[in-house]
């Protein structure tokens, strides 16, 4: 089996969970190698973690270019490494930037690209990806028919499983090419202290029904009692009640947690596009006709300002 390159997503010097999921998936279709770009002094630690999750080799490249220029330096590095290693496939996390990198790498390698896979398995003529499309109302199985497949995979598509491998570091010098936009300043996002929205096992989201910025208090209290991430509908984000980084849906984050709780959200198609693949869905809405109830495993018709606090109290009591 060939070498499967996994572009390791990292932030604040640590591997992000989706990268470990990719390494886990890569083992199904070949032998994983990790690619760690622009990690500075954290590279060794990140490489060790990648090794724990099955990377036999870890290609490491560093340079100011990775931070100073948009997308292109990572494309340069990943393409160069894929060519040198004669990679059998390239896997990248489905994020805005991840998809852009993957697409340009595919074009340079002469490969087809599949984005937003939710599952990956070995097939006769190469890996077969499952995509969940049209707001998750269809499942499509597709494959790349030319070149080494380049596939982006959504977070939470599988659970990471350790499988210790050598994790041997190979330092790479990248030749930077092409025209790129300059990054003139960067403001890191302030962490809320809660789990990352796309990585969380439980997400509690609030919508227009929350009524005001202060209304999100009851949503956050339930989230904290459950150890969950907080999400919001676009209506709540557009109203300025919650940051856009927390938006769930077509133009926000696409989440696939074990449990999704929707409070005061009607269930518009664009919202569904971001949460319909959740394993269990629960909703609280005062309108019994709200379309969200078509999706739920359990629904409560009622006022979220009485139901959520009662639920939070029960969760705390049961957890002791």
């Amino acid at each position, binding site marked *: 089996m060939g070498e499967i390159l996994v572009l390791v997503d990292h932030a604040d010097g640590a591997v992000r969970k989706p990268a470990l999921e990719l390494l886990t998936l890569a083992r199904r279709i070949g032998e994983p190698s990790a690619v760690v770009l622009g990690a500075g002094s954290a590279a060794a630690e990140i490489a060790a973690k990648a090794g724990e999750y099955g990377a036999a080799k870890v290609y490491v490249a560093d340079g100011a270019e990775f931070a100073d220029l948009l997308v292109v330096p990572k494309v340069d590095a990943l393409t160069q490494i894929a060519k040198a290693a004669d990679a059998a496939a390239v896997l990248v996390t489905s994020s805005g930037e991840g998809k852009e990198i993957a697409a340009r790498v595919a074009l340079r390698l002469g490969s*087809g690209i599949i984005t937003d896979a939710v599952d990956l398995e070995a097939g006769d003529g190469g890996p077969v990806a499952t995509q969940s499309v049209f707001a998750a109302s269809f*499942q499509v199985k597709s494959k790349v*028919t030319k070149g080494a497949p380049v596939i982006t995979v959504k977070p939470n598509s599988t659970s990471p499983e350790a499988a210790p491998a050598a994790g041997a570091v190979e330092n790479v010098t990248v030749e930077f090419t092409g025209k790129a*936009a*300059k990054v003139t300043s960067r403001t890191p996002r302030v962490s809320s202290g809660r789990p990352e929205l796309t990585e969380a096992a439980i997400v509690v989201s609030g919508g227009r029904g929350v009524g005001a910025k202060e209304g999100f208090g009851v949503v956050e209290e339930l989230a904290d009692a*459950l150890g969950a991430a907080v999400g919001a509908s676009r209506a709540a984000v557009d109203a300025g009640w919650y940051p856009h980084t927390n938006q769930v849906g077509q133009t926000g984050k696409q989440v696939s947690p074990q449990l999704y709780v929707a409070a005061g959200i009607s269930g518009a198609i664009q919202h569904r596009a971001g949460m319909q693949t959740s394993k269990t869905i629960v909703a609280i809405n005062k309108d019994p006709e709200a379309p969200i109830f078509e999706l739920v495993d359990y629904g409560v018709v009622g006022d979220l300002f009485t139901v959520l606090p*009662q639920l939070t109290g029960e969760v705390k009591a049961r957890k002791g």
Partner: protein
Amino acid sequence: MSLRIVVCVKYVPDATGDRRFADDTTTDREGVDGLLSELDEYGVEQALRIAEASGDAEVTVLTVGPDDAKDALRKALSMGADKAVHVNDDDIHGTDVIGTSAIIAKALDKVGYDLVVCGMASTDGTMGVLPALLAERLGLPQVTLLSEVSVEGGVVKGRRDGDAATEQVEAELPAVVSVTDQSGEARYPSFKGIMAAKKKPVQSLDLDDLDIEADEVGLAGSWTAVEAVAARPARTAGTIVKDEGEGGKQLATYLAEQKFI
């Protein structure tokens, strides 16, 4: 010379309608009502604002799509774009994103541009990669996923809200830009705009005009293939209770049964 802005727009099946696949596993674009992708309205809007700010600019809208895609062009023209280009050829049916980017890149070269503006993603394919592919093919800087954008003195600047950080980015023109739905509400076409749009020029191009061979595109020329399509099994009907004072507790009992608590 005036600033030549080209906005790439896609004609998509209405997301609130019954979207489905045709027998050849391509998107059914005939049996379903279509429209200008809502996310491309943001691209048209930002192009018009940049043009207004520059005082000397021309906005062209460009689409690759079937006959009905002219509706998307009309909508963009009625918002205020000056002219339109429609790339339409039966052989394009079923083209993947690599092929689509090749067609659009050739069309852009033919039309001429200083600034290419795209939406953040289509509402049907939702890949969000076409702008990056255009930048790669045209050898231009990509300044993408912007929530704020402006052009001044031949430099395009913007704000990119990434996963881990918010970045200020910039590049010299010519460049490829994509804008998000956070970039500013798109205007509604006025009655005057709708009337004027009927008289605005729409240029039609086919693959011959772009020197593209039929076998480079379409289902056969695609570098990806769909093996199977299946409707997602309907979720089994859930339990719905009315809150009579115990709704939160009942929900807690359910979550405990499911081992979430």
